C-alpha cells in the first residue's frame, strides 16, 4: 500500500529539460493556441464574405457552431453510441438480448436502492444549492465586503474531491461516548444536546443526507457565482424605479428580480439536476456505496472497472441518459418563453 506513492516523491528535478524543452513549449502553446482560434474565426469570415449575399446567413452559423459540434460528436457522442449499442448485448458482447440487461438491472435489489438514493439526491441537492446560492448572491450583493464573502463561499470549488473528503471526515468524525469528540458535529451533539454521538457516514438514517450536504457545500459557490453575474446584469434604474414607486423588497424580488433571473436559475437548476443524476466522486471517496449510499454513477463505475461487466455499465449509463430527458423538455419550454418575449 502506498509503495509507489513513496517512490514518486523521490523524483529529481531535471532543470535542463525544464528550461530547454518544457518552458519553450509552454510559451509556444500560450501564443499559438489563442492565435489559431482567432485566425479560424477571422479567416472563415473572409471566406464567407465571398459567398453570394443571400447564402451568407445560411453558411455562417455552421462556421460558428462547427468546431463545437465536431468535437462533441467525437468526444461524447461517438462513445455514447457505442455504449447504447453495447447495452443491448450480453456480457460477452456477441449476443443481442434486447432489453435483457435493463430487465436484469431494474430487478436487482442493489439497483433499486441506487435509484432511491438518486431520487433523494435529485430532490435535495439542486434545491438546496439553488436556495443557498441565490440567498448568498442576493445578500452578499448588499454588503460592502461582498468580494471576500464570495471568495470564501466559492473556495470549496477550488479543491479536489479527495481534499473535500478529508475536510468532511473531520466534520463527521465519530469517537465512542467515553472519549472527547474530535469531529465538530458530534462535539455539538454530545456537548450541547447531551446525546450519544452519531456515526454520520455509517448510520443509514443520516448518511445519505450527510453525503448530499458535502455536495451542496461544494456546489453552492458555483451557483452563487453564476446567479450573482445574472443579478449584476439587472439594470439598477429598474429596481430603483420600483422602490420609488413604493414596492417593498419582497415585491421587488418577486416581480422584478426573479423573472429577470429565471433563465439563469433554469440553467443552474438544470445543471444541478444533471449533476445530481451523475453524482459520483463524493460517494466513491467517502463510502464506496456502502451502508445503502450507492448511486447510479458509482455503481456504473463499479460495473465497468471492478466487475468489468460492460453490459451492465452501459445499461446504467443509458438509464442515466434517459433520466435527463424530462429536464430537457422543461428547457425547451423555457427558452421558447424567452424567445417569445424578445
Amino acid at each position, binding site marked *: *500500500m502506498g509503495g509507489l506513492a513513496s*517512490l514518486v516523491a523521490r523524483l529529481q528535478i531535471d532543470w535542463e529539460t525544464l528550461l530547454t524543452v518544457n518552458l519553450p513549449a509552454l510559451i509556444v502553446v500560450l501564443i499559438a493556441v489563442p492565435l489559431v482560434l482567432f485566425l479560424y474565426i477571422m479567416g472563415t469570415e473572409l471566406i464567407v464574405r465571398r459567398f453570394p449575399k443571400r447564402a451568407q446567413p445560411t453558411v455562417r452559423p455552421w462556421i460558428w457552431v462547427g468546431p463545437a459540434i465536431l468535437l462533441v460528436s467525437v468526444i461524447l457522442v461517438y462513445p455514447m453510441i457505442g455504449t447504447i449499442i453495447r447495452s443491448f448485448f450480453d456480457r460477452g458482447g456477441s449476443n443481442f438480448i434486447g432489453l435483457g440487461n435493463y430487465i436484469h438491472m431494474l430487478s436487482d435489489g442493489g439497483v433499486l436502492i441506487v435509484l432511491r438514493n438518486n431520487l433523494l439526491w435529485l430532490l435535495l441537492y439542486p434545491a438546496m444549492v439553488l436556495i443557498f446560492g441565490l440567498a448568498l448572491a442576493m445578500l452578499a450583493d448588499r454588503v460592502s465586503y461582498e468580494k471576500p464573502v464570495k471568495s470564501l463561499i466559492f473556495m470549496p470549488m477550488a479543491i479536489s474531491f479527495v481534499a473535500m473528503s478529508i475536510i468532511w471526515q473531520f466534520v463527521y468524525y465519530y469517537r*465512542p461516548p467515553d472519549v472527547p469528540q474530535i469531529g465538530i458535529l458530534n462535539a455539538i451533539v454530545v456537548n450541547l444536546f447531551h446525546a450519544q454521538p452519531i456515526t454520520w457516514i455509517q448510520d443509514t438514517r443520516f448518511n445519505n443526507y450527510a453525503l448530499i450536504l458535502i455536495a451542496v457545500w461544494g456546489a453552492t459557490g458555483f451557483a452563487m457565482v453564476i446567479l450573482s453575474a445574472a443579478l449584476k446584469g439587472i439594470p439598477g434604474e429598474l429596481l430603483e424605479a420600483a422602490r420609488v414607486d413604493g414596492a417593498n423588497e419582497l415585491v421587488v424580488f418577486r416581480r422584478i428580480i426573479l423573472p429577470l433571473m429565471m433563465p439563469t436559475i433554469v440553467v443552474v437548476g438544470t445543471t444541478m439536476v444533471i449533476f445530481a443524476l451523475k453524482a459520483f466522486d463524493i460517494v466513491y471517496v467517502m463510502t464506496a456505496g456502502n451502508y445503502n449510499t450507492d448511486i447510479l454513477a458509482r455503481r456504473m463505475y463499479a460495473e465497468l472497472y471492478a466487475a468489468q461487466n460492460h453490459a451492465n455499465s452501459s445499461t446504467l449509463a443509458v438509464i442515466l441518459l434517459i433520466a435527463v430527458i424530462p429536464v430537457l423538455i422543461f428547457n425547451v419550454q423555457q427558452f421558447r418563453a424567452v424567445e417569445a418575449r424578445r
Partner: protein
Amino acid sequence: MKPFTDQTGVKISFEATRDLDAILQTKVAAGNPPDVTAAPGIGTLIKMAKAGQVIPLDDKLDMSQLNANYGADWINLGKVNGKLVNIYAWAALKGLVWYDPKAFQAKGYQVPKTWDELITLTNKIKSDGGKPWCVALESQAASGWPGSDWHKEIVLSQSGPTVYDSWWAGKQKWSSPEIKQAWTTWGQQILGSGGSNVYGGPQYMRATTFGDGGQGLFTNPPKCYMFNQGSFITSFFDGYTPKPTAGTDYAEFALPDVSSSNAGAHVVSGDAFVMTKDTPQARALIKYVATAQAQDIWVKRGGGKIAVNKQVSLDDYPDPISKAEAQTVQTTKIARYDAGDLMPTDMRDAYWKGVLDFVQDQSKLDSILANLDKVQQTAYVGAS
C-alpha cells in the same frame, strides 16, 4: 529508484494513482499499456494474465537464480496457468496481534500460545471489566478489509490451504461449512455477541479508520488490550501522540493456529510487479526489483516491509519487531497470499461489504453469504 537509474541508465516515469484498476484497464484495452505495473491488488492482474495481456517472465529472468533467492511459495504465487507473470518485491505479514506489554504485565496476562489460550485470555479480560479487542474497519472506499483479514486468517488456519485456495479461486462457495465456520468463529469467539468483546461495539468498528484502531492500546487505562493488524501498522503507530516505542510500548505475537493440523499457516501480502509491455527498460526494472540489493533498500526504510529475496540479511531490519516478522515469514510453513486481493475486484469488494454487514448484525450471516455466493457466480467470468 535512484540506485536503479544510476546502475542501468534507465530513467523511470511513475504514475501513482488510487484509480489504478480503472487506468490500467483503460490503457490496456486501448492498446497503450505502461511498461511495468506494480499493483497492490493482483486480482485484476490475474484476469489480465488469463487474457494474455501481460508478458510471461520465465524467459526474461534468470530462473535458476530466482529459484535460489526466492522461496517456492513466492514464485508460485506469481504464476498464472503455469507461467510466471508477477514478481514480488516485498511482503507484509498479516495476522499479527499487537499489544502493550506493560498493560499485559500490570494485569498478569500471558501471551497466548494456542487458540484456546487466546479465547481464554479474551474471556478473562472481559470478566476483569476490560475490552479484549480493538477492531477498526473504516478505510474509505476499501472499508471492511481489516475484518476480511481476520476472516481469511481463520479460514487458512482452521480449514487449511486446500480449502483456502479453492475458495479464493471461486470454486468453493461462501455458504460452504468451512467458510461459514470461519465467520462464526470470528463472530462468536473474538467479537462476541453484538460485538461485546470489542471496544465501542459495531458503531466504533465501522466508523474508525484502521490506522487509528491501535490508539486504544496506549490509553491509560487501556480501552482495549489486543489489536490484529498487518506488519505495516507500525507506521501508523508512529503517528500517534505520544508516539509509542517499539518493544516497550507495543509488541506483537502471531495469531495462534486455530487448528493444529495447519500449524504455522500465515496470510501474507505484498507488491507484485508485472510487465505489460516488453521493452529493454521494463526487463531491466523487473530484474532489478527481484535483487537483494533493491529489496534491502525498502527493508532499511522500515514501515513493516519484509524482503522476499532470501539473500537480504536479517540484520538489515531496523528494529527487533520487523526482524522477528522477517523471521516468521522465512519460517512460515504454509504461506498464502491475501485471499481478498486474489479474488476478482467485485468479489473482493463484496467481501469487504459483507464484513461491514456482519459486524453490524451477526445474525444476518446467512443472507450475507447468500449474496456473496451470488456475486461469486458472475465475478469469475472473464470480461469481454
